[in-house]
């Protein structure tokens, strides 16, 4: 049996996390992990929604050493929680906030952890084959699609990332993230990366630009900021004085070259974009200010099968088709030309038109309905969905309330247009340009006119 350590830090005194200005050693971390592991219920599956990134990491590690599987769904709506329970009846929720409303058996992260350190503590070794996480995409018919992640593949993935980023083994970096640890990108780059590259995470999840700045200031140098095009643009527009950074990472959506140049100039650090997906994990990087081409991680390869490009090799255990339009340049490099049309990605939350339409049409009172994704105005701004519905018995607010239970709020349509019928063709299909024309016609009208109820 091949085993891999839970943390790659070489001494128990090294720092694995920064929390409210205090360093947390590997020893303290392992003590917390053992304490929490003893509290975990019998269920095999954990929905870990801890907001504090350190709590999340302890929850993940406690699950791993107890041979439990962490579930990472794309959203936490009541509908998704039900789906998780249908997937694994024994799932329980680990959380760290007092008003958790997840409808599952709950375990509150301990408010106080014991100070006691056990003697002869050693770093746990984990079977490389052990299933440690199941990550879900939203699927096309309402039920989420599961993707299993073994410890070995996750470790291989973030270690390839660490060497690509050039993280030197004898420097202890602080890793600060503006994205939640429950998102695949945050899971890899803000939790697994520090654990498996001898570095330290920051427990905070700063929200406003000023919070990002103060979190950076409170965390020792050298610092890596793990963020998104949205957060980076707002951070720059806030014109705050940024503390010294060693590296900036961005993912979830492509960054424009102009924003990449601005980020590098303001942060005085290289900005690397990461390309990946829930199914594959991260598979490529690029330094956007210098090249448009993406460079695959070592051993990962792209191959064409039929219409799709598939990723395989390296940490990608079974070949996976990619949902993007990709032009391969050579064995190691490729260009990205946008998403295949059905796929929706809003601020890192992913769904498909098929899935969203399924949920819209499942709402009682909706006779027909369709979502529409307008053309993107700019890479660095978030584009929102519109929707047209035939639902004479519903008001906008009842329909939105019903949708909110089923889909992540970022996908809620704006505007939501009530129409008499959808321009379906003779085969029942709804051509995109017909829908676009219909919406343009309505938006051009006086908003207050009869027959048109709006989102808010």
């Amino acid at each position, binding site marked *: 049996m091949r085993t891999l350590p839970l943390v790659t830090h070489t001494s128990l005194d090294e720092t694995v996390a920064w929390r*409210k200005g205090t360093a947390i050693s590997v020893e303290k971390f392992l003590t917390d992990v053992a304490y929490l592991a003893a509290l975990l219920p019998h269920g095999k599956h954990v929905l870990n929604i801890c907001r504090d990134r350190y709590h999340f990491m302890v929850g993940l590690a406690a699950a791993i050493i107890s041979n439990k599987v962490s579930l990472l769904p794309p959203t936490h709506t009541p509908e998704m929680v039900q789906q998780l329970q249908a997937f694994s009846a024994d799932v329980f929720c680990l959380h760290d906030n007092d008003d958790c409303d997840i409808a599952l058996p709950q375990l509150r992260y301990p408010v106080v952890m014991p100070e006691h350190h056990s003697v002869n503590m050693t770093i746990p070794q984990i079977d490389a084959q052990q299933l440690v996480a199941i990550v879900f995409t939203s699927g096309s018919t309402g039920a989420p699609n599961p993707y299993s992640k073994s410890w070995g593949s996750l470790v291989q993935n973030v270690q390839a990332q660490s060497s690509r980023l050039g993280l030197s083994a004898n420097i202890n970096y602080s890793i600060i993230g503006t994205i939640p640890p429950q998102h695949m990108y945050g899971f890899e780059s803000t939790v697994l990366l520090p654990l498996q590259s001898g570095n330290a995470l920051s427990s*905070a*999840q*700063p*929200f*406003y*630009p*000023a*919070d990002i700045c*103060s979190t950076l200031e409170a965390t020792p140098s050298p610092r890596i900021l793990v963020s998104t095009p*949205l*957060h980076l643009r*707002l951070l720059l*527009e*806030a014109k*705050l004085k940024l503390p010294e950074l060693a590296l900036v990472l961005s993912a979830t959506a492509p960054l424009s070259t102009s924003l990449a140049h601005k980020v590098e100039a303001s942060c005085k650090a290289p900005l690397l974009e990461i390309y990946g997906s829930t199914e594959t994990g991260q598979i490529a990087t690029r330094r956007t200010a210098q090249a448009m081409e993406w460079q695959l991680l070592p051993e990962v390869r792209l191959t064409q099968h039929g219409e799709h490009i598939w990723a395989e090799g390296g940490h990608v255990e079974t070949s996976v088709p990619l949902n993007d339009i990709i032009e391969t340049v050579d064995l190691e490099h490729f260009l990205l030309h946008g998403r295949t049309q059905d796929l929706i990605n809003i*601020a890192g939350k992913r769904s498909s038109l098929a899935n969203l339409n399924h949920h819209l049409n499942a709402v009682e009172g909706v006779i027909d309905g369709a979502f529409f994704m307008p053309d993107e105005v700019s890479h660095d701004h*978030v584009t929102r969905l519109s929707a047209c519905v035939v639902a004479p018995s519903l008001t906008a607010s009842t329909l*939105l*309330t019903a949708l*909110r239970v089923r889909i992540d*709020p*970022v996908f*809620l349509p704006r*505007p939501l247009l009530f129409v008499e019928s959808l321009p379906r063709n003779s085969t029942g299909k709804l051509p995109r340009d017909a829908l676009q024309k219909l919406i343009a016609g309505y938006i051009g009208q006086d*908003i207050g006119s009869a027959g048109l109820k*709006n*989102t*808010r």
Partner: protein
Amino acid sequence: MIENNSTLQLEVAELMVQALNLDTAVAEIDPDAPLYGDGLGLDSIDILEVALVISKRYGLQLKADSEDNHRIFSSLRNLTDYVATHKTK
């Protein structure tokens, strides 16, 4: 609410409606209804966009300081009070 905050409240509501292209009339926003989630229906992305406009207009930086990120946006009244307390212009 402090008397002269009512002008500020209208102004803040107006900024929000403009920044997000809302179809809601300023006068229709219930000052005590949640802005985030149910109610006006803003999400985290909207809040960050509005925060940017507000910080530029009033010369302040919004801070959640590890509290609930959306607390300042729990209602128009709370947001207005926050602006009134922290504004520098």
